[in-house]
């Protein structure tokens, strides 16, 4: 069932002088989905968000939010979108209560409607104990919650979150994602930039931007099936052993091993399909790394992005 398209980019481009920050980026996001936008620092993630929020004029191409053109119909778009910037833009000298009231009023809420929405968001974010505290004195996790509550005061249908979990503790991170799923289930469209691969895995759709270009875009499971990620005649295996760094040197020298990367206490290998597990185990044992545990694995999103960045391949299901 194709959902109604809420965010659409057609060859969206932003140039700053001679530098192209966003180069012909095209994708679309359906209503109620959580779109994870990934890419290294400086790859153009924030620039895309800023163009979609009407903060930056696109140099070329088109962006649409709920059918409205981001360059020409900015004022129609503004009531529809919520934006939580990287810095959690709050007024530090105002209390939690005052920040919420201010953002509500800014969007024209007043009286009973303001009070009702305020109560809803206080309940949703559990920020009640800190209601009288100045925003500047909140910890990172609570600042993030407050910033999110502020960006939700006006019932946006599309919410942009620019690295909402940067610098936040794991518990707050998980709680934020629980909230995002809740919003998504109620039909809100979420556009989230992140550095965390585990967060990307939880998104319904992901896009990966590298050097100003969108490298790939689609559902995580589809992306993992891409031929470039799984070249014919290969398989992915996980090798768990002692001294992984030494092990990495060993396996990288073996014929038939295409790529090898350390993942914590284990290595992820892309090897020829006919390569036997026994061969790898023996070679490791020769180098004083006995009892390696080897099992087949599916590619992770990280494998997808690494493979795509390495080949410079554009494409994938849209």
């Amino acid at each position: 069932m194709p959902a109604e398209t809420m965010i659409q980019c057609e060859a969206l481009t932003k140039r700053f002088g001679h530098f192209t920050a966003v180069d012909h980026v095209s994708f679309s996001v359906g209503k109620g989905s959580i779109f994870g936008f990934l890419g290294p620092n400086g790859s153009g993630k924030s620039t895309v968000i800023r163009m979609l929020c009407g903060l930056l004029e696109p140099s070329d191409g088109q962006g649409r939010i709920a059918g409205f053109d981001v360059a020409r119909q900015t004022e129609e778009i503004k009531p529809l979108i919520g934006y939580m910037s990287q810095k959690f833009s709050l007024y530090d000298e105002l209390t939690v209560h005052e920040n919420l009231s201010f953002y509500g009023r800014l969007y024209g809420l007043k009286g009973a409607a303001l009070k009702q929405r305020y109560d809803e968001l206080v309940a949703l974010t559990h920020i009640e104990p800190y209601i009288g505290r100045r925003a500047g004195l909140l910890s990172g996790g609570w600042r993030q919650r407050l910033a999110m509550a502020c960006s939700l005061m006006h019932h946006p249908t599309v919410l942009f979150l620019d690295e909402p979990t940067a610098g936040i503790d794991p518990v707050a991170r998980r709680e934020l994602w629980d909230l995002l799923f809740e919003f998504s289930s109620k039909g809100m469209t979420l556009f989230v930039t992140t550095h965390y691969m585990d967060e990307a895995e939880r998104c319904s759709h992901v896009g990966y931007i590298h050097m100003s270009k969108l490298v790939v875009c689609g559902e995580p499971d589809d992306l993992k099936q891409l031929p470039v990620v799984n070249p014919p005649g290969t398989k992915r295996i996980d090798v768990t052993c002692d001294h992984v760094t030494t092990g990495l040197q060993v396996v990288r020298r073996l014929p038939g091993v295409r790529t090898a990367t350390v993942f914590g206490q284990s290595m992820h290998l892309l090897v020829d399909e006919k390569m036997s597990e026994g061969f790898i185990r023996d070679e490791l044992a020769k180098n004083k790394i006995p009892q390696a545990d080897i099992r087949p694995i599916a590619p992770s999103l990280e494998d997808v992005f690494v493979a795509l960045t390495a080949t410079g391949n554009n494409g994938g299901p849209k």
Partner: protein
Amino acid sequence: MRTPFRGFTAILYKEFLVVLRDPLTLFFMLFPPIVEMIAFGYALDTDVKHMATLVFDEDRTEESRSLVKQFENTQTFKIVGEVQSVTELAAAIRKGKAYVGIQIPPGFTRNLRAGRTAKVQVLIDGSNSSIAASALNTSLNVGFRNGLLTLTERFGLRELPVEVRPQILYNPEMRSPNFFVPGVIGIVLQIATVFATAMSLVRERERGTLEQLLVSPLSRWGLMLGKLAPYLIISMVMAVGLFAIMRYLFHVPIAGDLGALAAATFFYIFTLLSLGLLISTRATNQIQALQMTMITILPSVFFSGFIFPRETMPDIFYAISTVLPATYYIELERALVLRGASLADFWFNLVLLAAMGLALFSLCALRFKKKIA
């Protein structure tokens, strides 16, 4: 919802909270103007009185002592001591121990009585020209008056043949605070107000909150008015305080209509706050905003007629003075405070101030881009 001032009340609510929440900012907005006002007011007192004066009296008669007394009675000179030689007198002036030296040669009384010219020498330190001019005039006056009185006596006249009776209007004691302090208010208001709004948008830009405002349906007119209004109220309160200081500390009476003064001050402050906002839309950080604010202040100090009369300025400076709000405000203020002029005589200044304010304010709103970078 889609009014031109959309979001104004929200910004107003927030600005008031921010200003009141931060007592330090409020303090730095209100306190320096008061200090500046008092400091300026006293420092710009150019009334020359009680200048240190030394006497070298070689005559030592009743007449010579009477002459010294006449000098002292003018209030311009204060006899601080006697010396015993001209060298000593000159040395004392060179060392800065006295501004003026009076030398009465021997035979002063003898000459006077014999009907010959009785000479008196007055040495004046010319390094400060305005003080020297005052000392020169006063000492010449003492001489003339003394001479005339001697002549009338000699010819048996009862009164002087001609007497000029000047009457000083509006500032009968010719106190310099009456002239300077109203001007000081104009300048001090400019320093405090332009600075306040110049910082406000820049601070939001630096902190990233401006971006948050720009994604909201807030209109630029709403943003500008919301930013300006709280400072307009605070500045009006400050102005009341400054006029109170003028009235009760410097004893400058307010001759004119208080309502007219309030209206003039309102439009003046509105203009200055709009100027600050304009700076704030152009500057990218607080340091830049501060520098731009400083640039607007100096011409007002020198060219507005605050200290130097505009009429004697070179054309270029006169031209600059015609575009300064301070020029029109200080002129209007002096007319209202000192001369008790009615607004009917100076409506042009008031209309011009209001027009400048509205033009600057509109310029800010129109120039302000709801985009970043």
